[in-house]
């Protein structure tokens, strides 16, 4: 396998920008890391997960569904260049795997798959997390994984497409016969599993009906309905559809929605099955830790931690799970 320096990776991605719509981690002027093109900021592959949900490259906040002009309907088309997204963590790749499944269930969501089909996904892991902390190795679920050993990145292709691309990468072979990689894998396996255990335990307690409404009421009192948890969550897939008329065209768009809003489930009559903050707060957690377990066979919180980081009142999913385990187990 090849072992590439950060600068070599940058050159590699730059060389692909003609063929792909590149979304790589870049640092903006104010220090924020976002997914963007290399012209938007300094290449910043190190530093852990991107604060914004990376699944937004395939399921953006606003998306055009179709345009009607004089009665003619033009459906949304695939992008001119396929998307190449770089910098997904192991948890992000779990999220992507789930939303791939979600958008293919019952019917194939073309607006999502227009972008997802033909795309290239590059994961990142190893010793390049925030403040140098070790990030879990995904070991698949992407075309290429960049595994940091603290100095360079071992470039691990998992798909034919990935292999084809890596051939073009100008970097030395690792040359250690897999010893190096094996050590990193062991380090990954030895990472603490506290969050996973806590969230699984909380999921079990919720499903056993042990978490009371008094508890949810208490958590709900702290919710300020900013909707950041939903906007940051890579497995939140709810959207609202609306039409906009401009310059004689009617554009149907979809926009991320939030189950933390009163209007999310309000009926035309005004009746609202989720009309209280308690119900909305409970729903947010129930959905991912109980309802989805029934429906998909697994929870749909992949422990990325974004909701915990953005929540101004510390009621992200991990924080709430810790409180659930403390009080009800």
């Amino acid at each position: 396998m090849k072992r590439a320096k950060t600068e070599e990776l940058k050159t590699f991605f730059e060389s692909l920008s003609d063929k792909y719509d590149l979304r790589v981690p870049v640092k903006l002027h104010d220090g924020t890391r976002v997914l963007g093109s290399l012209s938007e900021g300094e290449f910043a592959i190190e530093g852990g997960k991107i604060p914004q949900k990376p699944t937004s490259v395939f399921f953006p906040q606003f998306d055009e569904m179709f345009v009607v002009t004089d009665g003619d309907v033009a459906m949304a088309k695939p992008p001119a260049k396929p998307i190449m997204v770089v910098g997904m963590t192991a948890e992000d790749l779990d999220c992507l795997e789930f939303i791939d499944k979600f958008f293919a269930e019952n019917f194939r969501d073309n607006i999502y798959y227009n972008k997802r089909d033909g795309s290239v996904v590059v994961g990142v892991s190893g010793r390049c997390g925030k403040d140098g902390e070790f990030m879990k190795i995904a070991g698949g679920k992407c075309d290429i994984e960049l595994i940091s050993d603290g100095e360079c990145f071992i470039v691990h292709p998992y798909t034919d497409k990935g292999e084809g691309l890596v051939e073009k990468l100008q970097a030395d072979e690792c040359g250690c016969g897999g010893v190096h990689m094996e050590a990193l894998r062991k380090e990954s396996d030895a990472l603490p599993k506290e969050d996973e255990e806590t969230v699984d335990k909380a999921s079990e307690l919720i499903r056993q009906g042990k978490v009371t409404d008094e508890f949810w009421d208490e958590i709900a009192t702290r919710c300020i309905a900013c909707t950041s948890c939903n906007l940051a969550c890579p497995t939140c897939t709810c959207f609202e559809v609306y039409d906009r008329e401009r310059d004689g065209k009617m554009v149907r768009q979809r926009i991320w929605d939030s189950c933390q809003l009163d209007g999310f489930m309000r009926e035309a009559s005004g009746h609202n099955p989720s009309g209280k903050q308690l119900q909305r707060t409970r729903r947010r957690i129930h959905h991912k830790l109980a309802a989805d377990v029934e429906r998909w066979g697994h929870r749909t919180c992949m422990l990325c931690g974004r909701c915990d980081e953005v929540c101004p009142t510390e009621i992200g999913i991990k924080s709430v799970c810790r409180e659930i385990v403390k009080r009800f187990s």
Partner: protein
Amino acid sequence: MTNSISCVEQTGCILLIGSNTTEQHPLIGTRIINAVKKGMKLIVADNRKIRLAEIADMHIRLENGTNVAFLNGLMHVIIKEGLADDEYVKTRTENYDELKAIVEEYTPERTAEICKITPEEVVNAARMYSAPEAAMIVYCMGITQHSHGVDNVKSCANLAMLTGNVGKAGTGVNPLRGQNNVQGACDMGALPNVYTGYQKVVDEASRAVFEKAWGVENLPGNVGLTVTTAINAACDGQLKALFVLGENPMMSDPDQHHVKTGLENLDFLVVQDIFPTPTTALADVVLPAACYAEKDGTFTSTERRVQRVRKACDPPGKARQDWEIVGDIAKRMGYDGLTYNSPEEIMDEITRVTPIYGGMQYDRIDQVGLQWPCPDREHPGTPFLHKGTFKRGLGLFGPASYMPPMELPDEEYPFLLATGRCYFHFHTGTMTRRTRLLDREERFPYVEINLDDAKRLGIYDRFPVMVSTRRGEVKALARVSDVVVPGHLFMTFHFEEAAANALTNNALDPVAKIPEYKVCAAQVRRAS
């Protein structure tokens, strides 16, 4: 704010008066919630059952418009029980005797009677606020939007000084500003009586500074009109032309009929805004402006922090930067001095003529903003004001006596109507009502009414009602709950189709000329 937002984490008690913080300043509201969790005491003095009231140590539902009596009542108890900071009063303040004489009359019993609360609430709140080493007063429009708003503010300052709570961390008199850059607008002299940095136009030395900087002579030394008095002057025919930038007085000023009369009476109305509004509809000329995401510059936050804002995208169509539009108009009127190449060049001029902004050059506020006063490039900014000494030397107690609001409920209009904002819309809704999910959240104009009143009048939740005052009548949906006390109504002014300001009273504070949005007499009935 005299102090910083972070002071919420350094205080022992917050007296929150007339601020629905979680809805209007949610990030500060969040800090308050977290501080309460860590043991900080919270007194909410607000008629409405706001979110913070649910976690407060005390929720005092004083009658709207009785803040002076309430604050005087607290001071009465503090003086009587020896809870004042005598050393501070002696060394840092003046006019204490007059304060003492005035608050003497405000016994807990008398205060309770005026405010429609209990004497115990007055005593307990006084003890709770004065107990910790550092206590903050945090207020908002519930204090200022009264015909005696200035008295309310002075009374807050009196209470803070009496207990030694000015000039150190975790204390202060802290108004929360209601718009992203209203602090900056005031700092820049967008007021009728001052140049930038509150340098008075009546002061010859100040005028000389600006005459020199701008290369002009004889700058006028008289104070101009405030927003509200300008509309009055337009109605009287005294004001002939008006240039409105980023305001929607048809929705935001009191007594809409009066505002419309005034604006229609003008010879010439220019409105500069980012979207069409009921005010642009009356304009002779509309100038399209860039919005916040389309401009470079600075915004100054509620804690006096001057922060950089960077352009994210180009303005649409013919929309332009405010400073370019104003500069071009000046040029066509024969003055080239308002022509600049960039916002940074403007900031450089600001730093040259504004002592409190003296050290705020762009390179110093590139990542993190600075809090004024920041007089020079070496100055680190000022997290709290009045440390060691007040700007005027000694802190002046400005005692006030309780004055009732200008219009109180009577037989014909038996309800007290207060207006304000809700969480999901901003101000006159120019932006948020065009935002799909926010408008979905609050789609219809509503009026909050207490359960008992609703029952008595046969009004049900979400049923249409007519709300009327001596100025006008609007139709809204009833929101029946215990958020408001019996006898009170609350409406937001976001909705063009039922403008709350068609109802409000154009009664002004004699000094600040702020209108009495928080109290007028109204009537409510089922819409037939």
